[in-house]
């Protein structure tokens, strides 16, 4: 299989970028609907980073962050992960349900899983609409741990085809209270699903 990931001008990369843009845009719309407030989204930043640079996005490899992980099942398989720093995670829960004190209690965790579920679900729904592939996401798994450890999951998957990781950075801003949520999506097709995904969009490898 001829997946080559390392040139920024690569057509495969362009397609993956566009998928990321559309998916993340859809996720922002869902977030706005869910909290019934105006949500601004900055233009998603899509880039290829070296393994080492990825944890720096979230404050370094030892910074504790929140990762919400889903398997993708159906016509194509793989996984999708949404990662947020702790402040963004609390802001996100607060947007939905304002609370007095912020800690990673059971309530926060289950709220984050649910929000992650809706965001990743709408991302994947748009991907499905775009490609005509029948795909769905699994139930969420959540981890709160060092950024390096959480990001090792997408890094290892991408590591099989590349020395880089494709990341899509999304910043959502709730307009009224100016609460900012900075989140990162990682779409991680399984190796044999790249062909299915790209093929469905008319790109041959």
């Amino acid at each position: 299989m001829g997946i080559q990931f390392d040139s920024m001008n690569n057509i495969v990369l362009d397609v993956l970028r566009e998928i990321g843009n559309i998916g993340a845009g859809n996720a922002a719309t869902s977030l706005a609907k869910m909290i019934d407030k105006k949500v601004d989204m900055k233009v998603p930043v899509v880039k290829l980073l070296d393994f080492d640079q990825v944890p720096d996005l979230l404050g370094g490899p030892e910074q504790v962050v929140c990762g919400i992980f889903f398997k993708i099942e159906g016509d194509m398989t793989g996984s999708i992960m949404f990662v947020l720093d702790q402040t963004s995670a609390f802001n996100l829960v607060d947007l939905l349900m304002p609370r007095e004190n912020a800690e990673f209690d059971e309530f926060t965790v289950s709220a984050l899983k649910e929000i992650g579920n809706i965001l990743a679900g709408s991302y994947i729904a748009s991907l499905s609409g775009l490609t005509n592939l029948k795909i769905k996401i699994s139930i969420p798994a959540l981890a709160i741990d060092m950024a390096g450890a959480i990001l090792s999951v997408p890094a290892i998957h991408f590591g099989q085809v590349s020395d880089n990781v494709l990341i899509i950075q999304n910043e959502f801003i709730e307009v009224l209270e100016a609460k900012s949520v900075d989140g990162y999506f990682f779409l991680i097709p399984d190796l044999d699903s790249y062909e299915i995904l790209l093929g469905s969009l008319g790109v041959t490898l």
Partner: protein
Amino acid sequence: MSTMIKVGMADLKVVSYPDALTTLGLGSCVGICLYDATTRVTGMAHIMLPSSKAIRKNENVAKFADTAIDELIVQMEKLGAKKSRFTAKIAGGAQMFSFSSQNESMKIGERNAEAVRDILKQYGIPIKADDTGGNFGRTIEFFSENGKLLIKTAGKGIKEV
């Protein structure tokens, strides 16, 4: 003065006394620490995948358990160490996210740790400490002074092995 030298993801480094090595936030990756107590030559690799054999993009030897261990041995022997005296300590290989129905690709941490153990066994390098598995990240520090390995976690404490 001893310096703490950082080993990145898919990276390896070799130092001699008095320097120390560290790698931050190991998840499913495995940190491999090799030590020659006589010369105090010390090496560390942060590998991501079990084997370079099935992967086309395999120029980076530090990314794979098999090629990283080979390279560590070569570099350590260049500094005067002897493979027959090597001992190993390994950490990492966690599974950060778990599901009830597991497929192979989710168990990459376990497969990484297993590959590392197999290769060390082939080379006859004894494993003095094995802190692998679980569902949490680890930061490790390895000291050329005494071959001690310090393992830090987020919320699960610190230990020395």
